[in-house]
């Protein structure tokens, strides 16, 4: 009889262990729009990069997977006499695909402390826009460098202008190249910016402006019917992805005319909310040799810039034989803001040993792109701040950061993605884990009591 009890008890115990194993990790991690939490379906992805230079110019070519390209960002849709804004910023992926695809590259020449070891993590302060708990304000709270703040973890403690100028002159800024599928690609441009006391655009004119007249609450431009075939697109066709590269889908000097308020607008008429224009100044340094196209499930984008732009306070200057640190971000599946995929820092050598080696070509020739791709894993970073990472009370590896141990030594991209997600539910997971600890300990104690009561010595058997 005891054997039946014993066997039954062990079966219950092992069964509960198996049941616990199969159900563990469920019930907490899920989208919570109230707290700005949306978890991407894929936590990691891939980016391929290669680079070439000729002594005057440097080219970077990027290739990354996108199931459906997003050719539009924000648009204006006519509805019952009003023009409504749709798309652009969204929590997580935009279901209407009205958020553009993007690639961004941060560049440093070794001037920014720790960037080469921790990449973009150093730029993530507490309370940035879209972070859980950050109130919505008109002012965007962008990424910044810790050295630009009196308290590196406090966005509002910006150092005096004179200090910022000193830092900038010392090279304490990150060069930021961007390519946008909607706001720069249609006219073959990139966008040149920086990360210092904020993430911003270089001096000059960027590749887009807002197609909206606040005074009249109407668009400034509409499609030129002689070029586009009509004054507007249809929102249903835009959302369905029926508007493609062969259509006129963007506004620029070649495709737009001033808005006609007297036109017989119909519900569903759609006009891009951005007007594309030629760049000038330092902001216009990064361009495309030709417009990028999405083919066979991949964006294939090339950006080019003068190695020495002369804008030393905006741009990192590339020198033959030099070594640089890069970090990338890819925006895919119609996502923007912090719903991007980032990379760990990648070293770049101009004909120098590095993770990615830029090949030198003859001056005046075009890149042949014969070298192999550098395969780089991208991952969803969650809301992990630099303040948290460097606080020994919150991060067991804070002492490793203090010892300047590179992140890649201790963490893989997959690990960081999983940690990023769990950090968004830190309190809930920790509480549930403690209860799991207590419950499982109770189960083991229960088993111990059970077995001690049921086991028999042979002489006890009558």
């Amino acid at each position, binding site marked *: *009889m*005891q*054997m039946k*009890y*014993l*066997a039954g*008890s*062990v079966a*219950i*115990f*092992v069964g*509960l*262990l198996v*049941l616990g*194993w199969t159900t*563990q*990790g*469920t*019930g*907490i991690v899920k989208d919570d729009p109230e707290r700005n939490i949306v978890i991407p379906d894929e936590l990691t992805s891939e980016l391929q990069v290669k680079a070439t230079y000729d002594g005057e110019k440097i080219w970077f070519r990027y290739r990354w997977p996108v199931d459906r390209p997003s050719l539009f960002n924000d648009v204006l849709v006519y509805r019952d006499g009003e023009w409504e804004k749709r798309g652009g910023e969204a929590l997580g992926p935009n279901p209407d695909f009205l958020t553009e695809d993007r690639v961004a590259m941060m560049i440093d020449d070794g001037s920014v402390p720790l960037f080469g070891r921790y990449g973009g993590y150093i730029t993530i302060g507490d309370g940035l826009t879209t972070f859980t708990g950050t109130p919505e304000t008109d002012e965007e709270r962008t990424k910044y460098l810790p050295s630009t703040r009196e308290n590196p973890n406090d966005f509002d403690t910006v150092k005096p202008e004179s200090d910022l100028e000193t830092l900038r002159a010392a090279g304490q800024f990150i060069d930021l190249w961007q390519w946008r599928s909607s706001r720069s690609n249609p006219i073959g441009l990139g966008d040149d910016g920086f990360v210092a006391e904020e993430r911003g655009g270089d001096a000059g004119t960027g590749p887009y402006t807002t197609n909206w007249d606040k005074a009249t609450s109407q668009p400034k431009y509409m499609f030129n019917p002689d070029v586009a075939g009509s004054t507007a697109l249809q929102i249903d066709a835009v959302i369905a992805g029926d508007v493609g590269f062969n259509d006129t889908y963007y506004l620029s000097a070649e495709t737009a005319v001033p808005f006609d308020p007297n036109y017989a607008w119909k519900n569903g008429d759609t006009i891009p909310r951005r007007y594309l224009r030629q760049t000038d100044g330092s902001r216009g340094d990064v361009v495309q040799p030709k417009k990028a196209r999405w083919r066979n499930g991949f964006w294939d984008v090339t950006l080019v810039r003068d190695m020495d732009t002369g804008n030393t306070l905006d741009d990192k200057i590339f020198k033959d034989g030099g070594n640089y640190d890069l970090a990338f971000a890819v925006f895919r599946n119609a996502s923007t803001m912090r719903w991007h995929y980032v990379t760990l820092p990648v070293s770049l050598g101009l004909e120098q040993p590095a993770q990615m080696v830029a090949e030198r070509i003859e001056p005046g020739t075009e890149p042949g792109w014969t070298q192999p791709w550098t395969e780089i894993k991208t991952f969803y970073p969650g809301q992990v701040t630099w303040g948290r990472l460097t606080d*020994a*009370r*919150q*991060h*067991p590896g*804070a002492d490793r950061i203090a010892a300047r141990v590179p992140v890649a030594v*201790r963490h893989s991209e*997959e690990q960081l993605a*999983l*940690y990023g997600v*769990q950090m968004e539910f830190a309190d809930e*997971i*920790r509480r*549930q*884990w*403690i*209860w*799991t600890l207590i*419950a*499982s*300990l*109770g*189960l*083991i*104690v*229960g*088993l*111990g*009591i*059970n*077995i*001690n*009561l*049921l*086991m*028999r*010595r*042979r002489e*006890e058997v*009558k």
Partner: protein
Amino acid sequence: MSARIKTQNLQMNADEDDQMKHSRFIQQGRRIGLAAAALTLVATGAALAHSEGGGVALAVEGEPAWSLSPVYHILVAHFPVGLWVTAYLFILIRTFSDSTIAVQLQKAIWPVAALGTLAGFVTYGLGLTIYPWSAITESPLGRNHILLATWTLSYWTVMSVLGYRFRRHLFDGAQRWITFTLATVGALVITITGTLGGSLTGTPSLVTKSLSWIGWNVYNTFYLPTWMLVVYFAGAVLLVAIGIKGYRAKPSLK
């Protein structure tokens, strides 16, 4: 020799056997106690000797804190792991063999397991000194290591008590299969705890990867959904109830 004298002689022999057994147990107990004390002394000595300069000073707001380098935890962790795995090996041999050597090994099971448990407590304590509690419980891998270490320690405490109380009877009749099953679960939790410790220090093993093949990526915190917590508490109560009910029933190994 009369029957009465025979009975007296048998009684005297039995008393001597009991005294000898008692003496052996005391000697064994002394040896285990000395070994455990020595182990604790060595670990504590190493810890104290290196707590200044050898550890990592952490600036924690409000009160000073200190930590020990993980090397001491890693060093001492080999003792419980080695001892528990040895105990499991002996259980394995005894389960499948009634040979003289298997029976001899069986006598070492509970002392080895108990020594492992004592070393386990030292290891567990040293492990908790490495990082501030608030930090290590923010790390999914840290949480998992603590969870599995707690399971391992509590589980082998249970096994040690069982071994001490039932000794050779662990292998009486069909009870040997219960012993074997329980010990196998114990060996599994030791393995997982060890591999999590390796992952925590930046050296993940094939075991780490293989766990993800069977449903658990160790970089995700192991936690149960609330309904499962209730089931676990109910399961604990049920196991105790079954034990009490079985204890009151007529004993039988058949």
